[in-house]
């Protein structure tokens, strides 16, 4: 599952659940649509709610890196759990996309305001 929000040139994609080949395809479609519409300069992918990830997650990050890099933007990999870090390290992802455990300073403050507003709107949980 995925929730996406763009403010002030920054797109925040919050992934949740298992990230495998099956779900990566769904997430990719949503992220790429947002990138094509909003042209952000930074894409922050938040992994804190991802429960499993295999190399499909690496493919997802690398593919987004290529898109962002073409338009001189950057990709940040945020808050990966320990078992995901293991896969990220093995792939050497940090050479292309910095990995961080802290979102502060990376995304505009008002993105959180928009998220609050959205939470109030959404009564039922979103499904993909």
């Amino acid at each position, binding site marked *: 599952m995925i929730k996406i929000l763009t403010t002030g040139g920054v797109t925040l994609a919050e992934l949740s659940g298992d990230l495998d*080949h*099956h779900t990566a395809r769904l997430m990719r479609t949503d992220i790429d649509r947002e990138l094509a519409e909003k042209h952000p300069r930074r894409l922050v992918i938040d992994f804190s709610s991802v429960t499993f990830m*295999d*190399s499909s997650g690496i493919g997802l990050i690398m593919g987004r890196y290529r898109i962002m890099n073409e338009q001189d933007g950057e990709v940040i990999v945020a808050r990966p759990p320990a078992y995901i870090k*293991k*896969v990220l390290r*093995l792939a050497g992802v940090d050479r292309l996309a910095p990995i961080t455990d802290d979102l502060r300073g990376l995304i505009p403050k008002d993105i959180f305001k928009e998220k609050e507003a959205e939470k109030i709107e959404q009564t039922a949980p979103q499904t993909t």
Partner: protein
Amino acid sequence: MSRPPLRPLNEMTLTFPALSENERFARLAVSGFLSVLDPNISELSDIKTAVSEAVTNAIVHGYRDTAGEVMMQVRIFKDSRISIKIQDKGCGIPDVEQAMTPLYTTSPEEDRAGLGFTIMETFMEKIKVKSKPGKGTTVILERTVQGKKRL
């Protein structure tokens, strides 16, 4: 490392059609079957990741242009040694050594990272790959489970 003895203590064989939604089910079946060994979080995550790579490869590459069945067999041996076989009857791999090279992939356009075999090798102790073009591919993954209690 010694060869696992011939008779498994328990085993299960699972077959399912090559649908991507079954990748999750394959992981679930493996962790459910191995739960009797009480694996710790880190080894369970390693095993699930390796299995996910092999099953995904069967679905994405093996049956790239066709429909077909994926078979997964999990065996538990003495001293918590496990062996997991993943088999497809798909297109096969012409050059296994090349396929196992880190970052090598025949499907970059589908965001494959070319790291499936690398992850299987890193996260399991032993990997055997048998493949024949037109016949299919068999991957056998082996390792020992330490478990929570024995740590």
